[in-house]
């Protein structure tokens, strides 16, 4: 049912543990040079969780990706700070959610049953004018749903029949996310394997958590990293900074981009001060609109690459541009590379 790619997507499934067992690795081998890649990725998983609450979803080698997960658990077991562990478990669960939501129903059912022993089955039923693909036993339902604070998850507001709650695919995946998070936390706590010689990694992990405020819900760091901007955005930004003229769509693209990487509307207004025909009132109004603070309440994203191409704003394409379809993805990926470079310089 599950491929090696699946194991890399879902390294917490029982098949992943079996896969690792079949490799016959010993924990003391982790310190040897050939496993550096695995340990690095393990540290990166934790770092990404702490910085972005988001663990990246692309990898080169399945085995490294799979093995890095239990390695991350071993590292976290050495750390006392509950916040770090919780943030990591949450981020892994979110990553799994994003994969699972695109899976076939059969695979979702399989993982729920095999790894988490859920009592869940296909229901394929329309009740009260709603279609439910699955039914889940109320004990499995409650264990996870009580953690989600929304009236729609309250058992009282569900169809409960002979021990089973009817749910949609999206709801099943959301409940799995909670289950995954809890199970990972338990794994970290229960891990009994003693590891040595990872003091440096542990010190760095604590360092990442110290730098960041856990209250922030944004996926990106607070400070903007200009060198990680995609070429198209860089061009508009530089043009405006030097007092040049910018078209409506250019202004929209830049504004939406900056707001999405974590700038506040006032900070964006500040940037537009340089524009020749700057009108503070009008600019602020438009920026707040794009930020979702006015009008429809929708926070706009910048146009995707194909749209920017249509507008003729896609320029100076580089290597990374070929791997992405959205300027925000470019920024996130470039940031990662940038961070690696910084880390390398620091050590």
């Amino acid at each position, binding site marked *: 049912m599950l491929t090696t790619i699946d194991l890399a997507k879902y390294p917490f499934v029982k098949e992943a543990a079996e896969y690792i067992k079949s490799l016959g690795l010993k924990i003391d081998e982790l310190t040897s040079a050939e496993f550096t890649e695995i340990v690095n990725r393990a540290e990166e998983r934790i770092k990404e969780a702490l910085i972005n609450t988001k663990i990246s979803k692309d990898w080169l080698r399945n085995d490294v990706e799979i093995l890095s997960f239990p390695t991350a658990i071993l590292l976290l077991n050495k750390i006392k700070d509950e916040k770090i562990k919780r943030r990591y478990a949450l981020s892994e669960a979110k990553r799994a959610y994003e994969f699972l939501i695109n899976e076939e129903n059969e695979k979702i059912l399989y993982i729920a049953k095999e790894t988490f022993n859920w009592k869940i089955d296909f229901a394929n039923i329309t009740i009260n004018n709603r279609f439910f693909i699955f039914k889940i036993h109320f004990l499995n339902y409650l264990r996870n*749903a009580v953690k989600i604070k929304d009236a729609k998850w*309250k058992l*009282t507001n569900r*169809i*409960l029949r*002979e021990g089973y709650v009817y749910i949609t695919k999206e709801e099943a995946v959301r409940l799995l996310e909670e289950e995954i998070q809890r199970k990972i936390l338990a794994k970290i706590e229960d891990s009994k394997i003693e590891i040595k010689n990872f003091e440096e990694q542990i010190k760095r992990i604590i360092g990442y958590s110290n730098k960041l405020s856990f209250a922030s819900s944004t996926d990106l760091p607070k400070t903007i990293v200009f060198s990680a901007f995609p070429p198209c955005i860089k061009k508009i930004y530089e043009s405006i900074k030097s007092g040049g003229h910018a078209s409506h769509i250019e202004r929209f693209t830049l504004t939406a981009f900056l707001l999405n990487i974590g700038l506040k509307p006032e900070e964006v207004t500040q940037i537009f001060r340089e524009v020749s025909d700057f009108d503070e009132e009008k600019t602020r109004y438009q920026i707040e609109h794009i930020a979702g603070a006015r009008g429809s309440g929708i926070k706009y994203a910048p146009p995707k690459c194909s749209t920017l191409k249509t507008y003729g704003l896609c320029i100076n394409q580089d290597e990374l541009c070929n791997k992405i379809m959205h300027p925000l993805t470019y920024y996130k990926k470039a940031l990662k590379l940038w961070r690696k470079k910084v880390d390398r310089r620091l050590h």
Partner: protein
Amino acid sequence: MIEDYIKKKFSEYYRLFSWRIKEPKEITKREFGFLLFKEKIMVRHKSFLNINNLREFIKTIVPSDVYYSSAYYLKPEEEMKNKGWLGADLIFDIDADHIDTLCKKEHDKWICKNCGYIGKGASPENCLKCGENKIQSETWICQKCLDKAKEEALKLIDFLTEDFGFKKDNIKVYFTGHRGYHIHVDSKEALELTSEERKEIIDYVMGIGIDLNLLNFLSLAKEEQTYGWIKRITSAINFNSLKKPITKKKLREIQSIIKDKAVKVDAVVTMDIHRLIRLPETLNGKTGLRAVKIDLNHFEKFNPFVEAVALEKGEEKIYIKEAPKFFLGKEEFGPYKNEEATLSTAAALLLICKGKAEPVN
């Protein structure tokens, strides 16, 4: 002196009938508690290796009430934080104290120990006259109250089987020996339910937080098969009269249906996963009646005033301050007011336990 009398009778019962007390499942993992007559204190954190040890202990100390934990512990004798909680039975408490019955005004009263005010019916939190909370209540067990409690228990059993899918064999019903019923769900799966999860179950059976929109109530087709709460509501409403948007009047009607279909349980008991509950086949110190296990098939016909009598033989001469007309065993008694009378032992014990009479000599 009154305590001595009751204790003597309880001792008699346990000497004759302690064999009726069955060994609770996994007795070594349970905590036991005993309320003592004289000291009025609870001896807790006791544990027993087997039922014989427990029976001997009860026969020796003769407590006014015997409790055991719904929870299973690694070390039941340790203090709470060191016990090592392993799980707890899912239990529900249905008590006339939590149900509004009209007859309470006739047979229950409360006395404010601060200002001496006497009120009728269920006791309030604070005195209605002086506002102090030093309230002493005097309750009575009556057929109507217990019938109402039984009705609630039957509703709960319907929720537990139809909605929650528990098997009837796993649902145990007990008369508490006073004003209500305990329902225990004997299910391995339910053992590990957290307090938070038990609260969700309670909210479900009590109909708390129902959102008709979230249940897609209005887009329901008339002929459609439904389940759970929607089924309960639609079974009680004229479907053709439901039009969108729903009128305030209709909404009130639906809300009153929900109130009617909801079970009145004591939520605290279910949510408390360290609760001590009455041990079946022991005596209730408030009445001298037995806490009886009831066969589910017999529940509807169960009559606590006949079947919970502990001591069926003997007579006692007592002085009765005041007591309404009541039925116990095979006889009818009362009403009494400031008089001496000779009653069956069970009836005499009930009045004395209830503080309505004193033994003569």
